[in-house]
């Protein structure tokens, strides 16, 4: 079953004649549990694609289905609610809320949803992320790798249908990068989590089940790995 389907997705910036086409009529689908890497040069449109898939940006044309719903048919608030339940976003710069502690940051999507925090799952998550003894720290008291792990925890907390990561290791050293990738793979394998990762790093791409290559806003290559 396809958990995510992208159809004729186009995103343009500016107006003619200075129009910039960031994404040009892209279509593909991702089945549940797949680990997809999107690669491409800077400015190729891969981040735009990811943000459109996550519902944080709006397409100029085309549709995105997640778990069978056309997310851009939803209104503003419904989309926000959809996002916190079904999409986990991980950014290059972590983007944690600076005034909230590790635990508070991770549980934020659940709390926003008005649901009770599943304490045993949280405990498990903190253990996997190696953050058990950091739960009451604020983001600026953590290293980059630790901060990124918090943002992974936040992305996974609501057990979303799909996790989208935008160059999650782009800001980290190779050791931390390795840890992050291992974590993401673990979530993919252990929880059967669908995972889309944008990366520059060939090593990471090679770990994925499938590699989509983007160039000038178009998919130029879409191949299964191994």
């Amino acid at each position, binding site marked *: 079953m396809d958990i995510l389907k992208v159809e004729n997705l186009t995103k343009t910036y500016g107006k003619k004649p200075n129009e910039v086409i960031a994404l040009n009529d892209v279509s593909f689908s991702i089945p549940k549990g797949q680990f997809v890497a999107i690669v491409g040069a800077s400015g190729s449109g891969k981040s735009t694609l990811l943000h459109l898939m996550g519902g944080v940006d709006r397409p100029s044309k085309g549709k995105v289905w997640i778990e069978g719903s056309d997310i851009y048919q939803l209104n503003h608030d419904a989309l926000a609610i959809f996002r916190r339940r079904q999409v986990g976003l991980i950014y290059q710069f972590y983007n944690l809320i600076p005034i909230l502690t590790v635990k508070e940051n991770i549980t*934020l999507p659940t709390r926003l*949803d008005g649901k009770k925090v599943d304490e045993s799952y949280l405990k498990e998550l903190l253990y996997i992320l190696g953050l058990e003894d950091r739960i009451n720290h604020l983001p600026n008291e953590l290293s980059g790798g630790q901060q990124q792990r918090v943002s992974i925890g936040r992305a996974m907390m609501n057990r979303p249908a799909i996790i989208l990561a935008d160059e999650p290791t782009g800001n980290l050293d190779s050791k931390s990068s390795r840890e992050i990738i291992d974590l993401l793979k673990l979530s993919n394998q252990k929880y059967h989590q669908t995972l889309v990762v944008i990366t520059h790093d060939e090593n990471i791409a090679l770990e994925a089940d499938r590699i989509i290559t983007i160039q000038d806003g178009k998919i130029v290559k879409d191949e299964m790995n191994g």
Partner: protein
Amino acid sequence: MKMLNEITIKNMKKNRKRSIVTILGISLSVALICAVTTFVSSFQTSMVNRVKAKEGDYHMTISSVTNEQLQYLKENVQVEKIGISQTIGYAKTEELKNEDKPYLSIEALDEMDIQSKGITLTQGRLPQNDQEIVIPEHTLQNGEAKWKVGDTLTLPVGERTIEGENLNQHNPYLDGKDDDSLETFTAKETKTYQIVGIMERPSFENYSAPGYTAITKWEKPLAGKTTSVTLSLKKPKEVYSFVKDIEKNLGILGENIDTHDSLLAQEGIFKSDRTNETIAVLALIVIAIIIFTSAFVIRNSFTISLTEKTRELGMLASIGATAKQIRNSILWEGVILGVISVPLGFFLGILAIGIVLMIVNSIIQGGGTPLVDHFDLTLVVSWQAIAVSAILSAIMIFISSLRPAIRASKIAPIDAIRENKDINIKNRKKLKTSQWLGRIFGVEGEIASKNFKRSKRKYRTTIFSIFLSIILFISMNSVVDNVFGFSSLEFQDRKYNLTVNLYEKTEEYAQQLTEQAKQTEGVKQVALEKRKSVIIDPSKYYTPEAIEQKGISLKNYGEQSNTVGENLQIVSLGNDVYQSYLKEVGISVEEAKGKAVLYDTNIYYQQEEGKDGSKRVSYEILNLEKGDTMTYETTATGEQDQAVTTGKKEITIAGRADKPPMGALYSGYNIAVLIVSDQMMKELGDYTLSKMIIECDNTAKVKEELYKIDTGLKEDIFDYDEQNQSEQSMVLIISIFLYGFIAVISVIGVTNVFNTITTNMALRNREFAILKSIGMTQKEFRKMIHFESLLYGTKALVFGLPIGVLLSYGIYKVTTNIYETPYRFPWGPIAISIVFVFAIIFITMRYSMKKTEGLNTIDTIRQENN
């Protein structure tokens, strides 16, 4: 060095938002000082001009001046200008029909004197020689003379005497009617004058003066005529010491010197040192508050962007800029900011006042006849104040801009770059936020309160600016309330503005008139006052204060004595007014039934040594309380015009009232009053109709209606509005000034809060975008922001209100030096503060929220990363 300066300018251009906010902040503070000083100086100048136009432009007049004295005064270096006048004498003429004012009082004035005395022509021109004359317009009005410009008058001129004593304009006409004293007029010469102009009634002619002032030109000294001078000093401050000097050196009698106190007071010079000191202290407090506020406004505008600035400086340090280089680049930035924002601030401040004055002028001059005569507000900019505020702002900019440099130099460059300082929890316990907040307000409330607790630095600025605005508002209101005291009890309490005497009128007639008055448009309340005068024994019922104040000797009272006693009034006012009065004083109809409400507060003003104003003292006349019963005696006029007791009765007190009933004079009745219902008055019997008391919008209109019923009422009507016009225009001027002042301060306070909040919100755009990207809905976001607003406002109020009240009490303490009035707790300003603080915060937050909502989530997150 040059390189760094270039970077600074580029940085300022790049961070346009931040630069604009900083510039705006500085401008606001400069505008505050500039606006306040301009407003005060404009107002003062207008008041001075008003007094000059109305009462003349001179510091003192000296009468009966000898030639030697005149010479001395003319040569005195302290004297700026001197005007000379001589009294020609009185002229009697049949043309003048006014019984109390049968003369022309002819004065010869030199050019300077005409100018100083503020002679305002309504027709023609000023006299150019001693053959020409200007007459006042009231000769034609209440004098009913038929003169016009161009007429020639030939008049017998002489003096008024009584028993050989010369009389002047200060002695009213003695016509021999009242007490057999009749003055004589002796003509000494015949003079011929041509009327060349008609003028407004000169202000120096008092109302009881027997002669209409006519003015001719003074050309040369005239022998045998009294000479007077009007003079102004170069330094008005020296007036009172100058008076002492000439009294001593020239032997001029003190009674012949009349200082122009009202003009001097407007120029800020008072007789008493104590008043001078009080005003100085007060001005100091006001200036201190304003300077403190504006200093913080400048600091605020820097603090908001402190984090970013620190990051930038850390960056510079990390690539090898020395501390000195950084400091210089900051100074450079300060110079640029100052050069742009200080003039902008002046412009904004003066513009704001210009607009305020324009509005005020249009209100005053609005409906044909000006609300306040001779009052034209012109913009006067005090350049000294502007210079001071420029220097002050420069210093503040310097200090404020150095702060990030000091901060950046203290921390490692990399920490500065990473902005690690802003969220700094020293004590881990502080991490705990209360659970119930989250439970009540949901996770949004929790985030808001955590933000509030953990990111104190950013919030402190906002709260401080709200806090300052509250303090400013409450304390300035106190200045208004206590210093000028115009809203004192006297003006507030007299609600009625028209009374009609009804003695000797029938009850039917009075009823009919009352009904008619009630139906007239613009009439709010009509009371028909009935009175019954009775006698009580002061030894039984008077308080010790009343006995002392009224100078009653108790020896004359008691059972054995024949003396009747002290007067007491029983009053009824008609059903409507009675009912609303009961409500006002908090006594129920049932409680009052068959009983009387007592009002006996007596107020007097005690002059105190060494103070300009007087102390307001109030005391109660009767020693009765609720439920007490009092015996009174009714009287009738006996054979020898003496009061004779006709019987004794008892009356019970339903309660004490703290407000006088309608119709009481502002200081009360001066005697005790019992207020009863119409019904009860009927039962008591033997009352007299006293008057009809009307509260209305437009007395002229009501009078017109009443005259339609009975033209004979003209003599019985008393119009308080007409009577108090000058008093009221003064109150109006003062209230315009004070409310204008408060308005300016409030506007600046509000702008400051607005500026601070919007900036703070704009700087948090990224944080908001992240929250949205992880799925916070618009509604939840709004809830969070509203909750934050609530926290902001509450905190600012919790600190601001008590300190504001404290300051207001301090100001009150200072001012009691002049006027002793009871302290009035600033309930009104507090209520206004609370409402406004929340309103402004919510509106501002909403406004900045709208701006955030329009932004593309992902763009915002990315922009701020790079």
